[in-house]
Every structure is written in structure tokens, then in C-alpha cells.
């Protein structure tokens, strides 16, 4: 098992780590106790490259109160090369340049000392 804290501690150091089911090979973003695909609880870890392509995106223009100062900003659903997906903020990509299928690479989002979060920048 990998806790959320451990996942983001790794992310801070530049590494993304998924869970890999030893029974069926399914990958999962932690935390997860039982494998959704096979129902077993037999995990190992698998490093993620952090590289993927944008499978959907939006530009948030009306933001929640605590993110209002950052708006407008883009959020993308990114399918990583390993097949799992992560949601992340897009950074260092002009909003009008974002396209479906665009290659992107993981980086850490840390906004005004807020909690760590996933971001993606240009590949």
C-alpha cells in the first residue's frame, strides 16, 4: 500500500508511483486496498513515467473561493503512457494552445504554499 501522503511525498521529489496488482497486472492510483479488476489484495509498486497525453480539458473561469486569484486556469484529464490517468492543472501552456492529444509531462503544483497537487507542463 501507498498512502496519499506517501504518494505526494514522492511527487514532491519528482516521482509518481502507482500500485500494480501481482495477481492480474492492473495498475491503480493509490490509495486502494483491493484490486477493482480481480478483487485480490496483493500489490507491488510500479513507477510512472509522468508522461502522457491530454484526454480531456477545461478552462476554469469561475473558480472556488480559495482558487479565485489563479483563475482562469486549465485542468486536464491526462492518460499516462502506462494507461492510468491523472487529473492535473496545466502550467506553462497558454490556455489557447491546449488541445486534445497534446503530450504533457508531470510536475508538482504548489500554489502559494497550498497542499501539493498534480500539474502537467509541456512535454
Amino acid at each position, binding site marked *: 500500500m501507498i498512502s496519499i501522503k506517501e504518494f505526494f511525498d514522492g511527487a514532491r521529489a519528482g516521482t509518481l508511483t502507482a500500485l500494480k496488482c501481482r495477481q492480474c497486472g492492473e495498475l491503480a492510483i493509490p490509495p486502494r486496498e483491493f484490486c477493482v479488476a480481480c478483487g485480490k489484495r496483493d500489490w507491488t509498486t510500479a513507477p510512472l513515467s509522468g508522461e502522457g497525453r491530454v484526454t*480531456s480539458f*477545461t478552462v476554469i*473561469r*469561475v*473558480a472556488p*473561493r480559495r482558487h479565485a486569484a489563479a483563475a482562469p486556469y486549465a*485542468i486536464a484529464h491526462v492518460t499516462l503512457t502506462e494507461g492510468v490517468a*491523472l487529473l*492535473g492543472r496545466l502550467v506553462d501552456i497558454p490556455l489557447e494552445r491546449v488541445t486534445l492529444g497534446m503530450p504533457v509531462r508531470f510536475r508538482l*503544483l504548489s500554489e502559494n504554499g497550498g497542499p501539493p497537487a498534480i500539474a502537467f507542463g509541456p512535454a
Partner: protein
Amino acid sequence: MRRVAVIGVGVTKFGKHERTSAELFASAAVDALADAEIEPRAVQSLYYGNVVGSETEKQLHMGPQAASVLGVPTIPTTRFEAACASSHAAFRHAVMEIASGVSDVVLVGGAERVLNVTTEESTEYFAYASDAMWEQTLGLTFPGVFALVARAHMAKHGTTAEQMAAVAVKNHRHGVLNPKAQFQKEITIEQVMKSPLIADPLRLYDCCPFTDGGAAVVLASEEVARTRKRAVWVLASAAASDHMLLHDKRDLSRVPVTERAAAAAYRQAGKTPADVDVVELHDCFTIAEIVATEGLGLFEPGTGGIAAEKGWTSLGGKVPVNPSGGLKAKGHPIGATGASQVAEIVTQLRGEAGPRQVDGASTGLVHTLGGNTATVLVSLLGT
């Protein structure tokens, strides 16, 4: 299991109110009890829906509060929270209490008050229904969630912004016919397309409003319902869930949780999509109505946008969807929405919907979605 019927419904005007959510619910419940011709002392329990009251009203323990304001403080009651599907989840559990033989008369309802806070605040509170560690930290909003669905649906099926706008135009046209609706004015495709972007590609008029309001329905056992002239039977009430996190969903163009809940409901009722005469479904955003009509089996996957554009979901169309005006025009007081949708279908099946009546409707479907497409309730009602 025993048969269960709806014998009374009540809904407040939707919009801005200077009353607490408990007061709004109690007002709707008074109407529902009068409609059911049931004395308050005959009610054996209350299943209550509310979502963001702990933020907007700084209030927990809302079940006893609502029951107390209504004047039935001693009955068992619990608040249900399933994001925007809360009072439909409450409805399903109330149905099971009667079906199992525990009670004969149960009150279900919900209420929400959000227009007493700013849009930035309510946007944040609604976002609490997405994951705190993975999604809220990104600044994801509910329009943002459905914008991701819209973009995926447009890419996969060629759905257009004009087709999405057609949903808003249709629901506003229906809302004109509903005196309880928050918006009773028609809008045009051009107005939708020129409204400001909220979360690309969704614009202001693709989004339902923030709303205050309450709704209540009275459920009864067959024995009680047989003594009422206008009982409407609960043919099925099913729930399904899906991964909480959007990153665990591999194909955002589909909402499999709707497909699962619908399949379970059709199976329970022994019905198919072709049997459905009228639908109230969860159009929190225009794209949400399009994907719901597909997930419920009313239209083939990828054709929900075409159905909206062709008028197949309008009053007078193949399958009228959201004759009440839907969340878009009727309004979306999130804790009350599911119960209010049930109230509309009951009104339709009784033939009491006036100018928005679907002629001869005998089977109706209610669909309510909660959170990041993680919860769906589908109930089927019939005469």
C-alpha cells in the same frame, strides 16, 4: 416485498428565499401531507436530504431539526447526503422501509439554502463533493467536471455546442409552463452561445442555477394507498455508484453509473426504455442531460445531442424530458432536487400538470446524479 405508492407531493417555489432550509422543507411537507390527506401524526419516519447546510447554514443534525419545524419531533429521522442525489437516495431508503413492512406512512424530502452566500463560496462548497486531496486541490468545480465530460463527448461523437444549447432552450421553454420554476422565461440558442464561459466549453446558460427550495413526498404501503384515489406506484427504485475520482474513469464520454442504475431499475420494474412516457432527469449542465438520455437507454450512445437538437425530448416529442423545466430552469436546490423530480413525475402521471402535461403518460422515470458522476438513482413510477 410490499408494493409502495406515492400518495402526496409538495414543492416550494424555487428561487431565493429568506427562510432556513428546515422551514422550506416543512412548507413543502405541509402541502404534501394535505395532498395525501394524511395527518402529521400518521407519519412514522422522515428521510431527509440536504447537502451543504453545514457550510451555508452552519447546521448539522438536520433530520430532527426539519421534523421539529414540521411539528413531528418524535419520529425517527436521518439526513441523507449523496451530493446532488441526496433526497432521491432518501426516497429509495424510504421505499425500502415500507416495502419491508417496517412502516406504512413515511415522509421523504429535502431542502437547500445557498443563495445566502456568494457564488464563489457556493462554488467552493459544491466542489466539496469532489475529492479533497486530488481534485479540490486543483480548483476543480462542478461545471469543470461536466466540461471534461462535454469535451470528451464532443471529440468522440461530434456533439456540438449548439446541440448542448438546444437542451437549455428546451428546458427554459418548459420552465415557462411551471409556476414553481426559478426561471420562467424563454431563451434562444444565440443567447446561450453568447453567454460567458464558465468552464470551457460550458457557458453560463449551459449551467443550472444556484437555488433555494424544498420538496416533500408522502410514501405509503399498498393498504394505505388503496384508500387514496390518486396513488402513483413505485415500480422500481435503484441506486448505483462509480469511482469517486475522475482519474479512475477511463472514458469520460460515458456515465456508466447511469447505465447501471437504469439497468437495475428496468429489471426491478420489468420495463424497458420504450415503456417510458415522461422523464425528469439530472440536467445540472446541458451535457449532463445529453449523456443521461443515452445512459438511460432513451437514445443510442452518441446521439443524445441530435435528439435534443431535433426536439425529440421536448414536450410533444418522442420522449418528453424535464417537462418541469429541469434543473436548468426549474432550479436546483441540491438537497431537494430528487424529491422535486419525483413530485413532477407524480403530477404528470396523475394528469395534473396543466399546460406542461404529457398526454396519457402512465410510466415515468426519475434520474438523479450526485457528485463527479459517482452516484445515480433511477426510480420508475406508474399508474
